[in-house]
């Protein structure tokens, strides 16, 4: 069981997504792929009952890091 997150390239920075993946590496196996207009991240948590929460927090982390970096255009 895994969850796939899709991050629009016009809204999310790749380095922010990588930062988020690194932050949750202890809790889940995350794979980043280029999906054309989106970055695809497959999240597979070590504890399946925590998968939804980890995927949600990973998305928040990527969004927060993108915003703190001034968005995609900067």
């Amino acid at each position, binding site marked *: 069981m895994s969850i796939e*997150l*899709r991050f*629009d390239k*016009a*809204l*999310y920075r790749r380095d922010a997504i990588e930062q988020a993946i690194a932050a949750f590496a202890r809790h889940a196996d995350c794979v980043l792929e280029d999906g054309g207009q989106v970055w695809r991240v497959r999240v597979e948590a070590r504890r399946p009952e925590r998968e939804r*929460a980890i995927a*949600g*927090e990973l*998305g*928040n982390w990527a*969004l*927060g890091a*993108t*915003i703190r970096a001034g*968005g995609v255009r900067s």
Partner: protein
Amino acid sequence: MERTKLPGIPETLAWADPSSGEVSFLADSTVYPLDAVYATAYVFLDRCWVLLGRHDGHWRVVLAPKKGPADDETLRAMLGEFANELLSSAWRHEITRQNRATIEAVVMHALGGAMGPPGLDELEEFDFSSEPFEDPLGIAQSWEEKYRKRTAEAANEPPSGSSAPRDAEGAAAATPANGREPSAAEADAVAGPAQGGDGDPESAR
């Protein structure tokens, strides 16, 4: 994916997904700038899982509460708060855009004042020979400059009132009425008795 309408909100703008406990919201990208969407999303990061996307000229926002029930009423309330905050952020963004020049000028003045008085090294390097600033009211004028100016003006003033006859007498004494050059005797008489007949002060003693 299950898609249900939220009461009071057009389904084309927002809908809920009870199976995943999420609500989706579309915001017109011509009305709401991306910076406003970012600012609003940032406020909600502590209580929701937020995912941004794009859909047909709109920003798509997916919200899911981290804690508590994800029923329609909760999702609708959360969506309403997000929409209000988004409108507020968009307006603040617009005000900032309109007042950017003023804000920059005020900040520059504040930073300039915060730097404090110049040090001795800076004063040594300061060019005091540069042109002074405009001072139409003479506020920056020193007392000496002001006093000297008045004295000079007084000396150049034309005679008026009771002083006129005295000046006229002096002028008549210095210059004969017929306009010829004064003789040596006349010049001595004007200069006074301290000088001798040949005009040499030494010989007068």
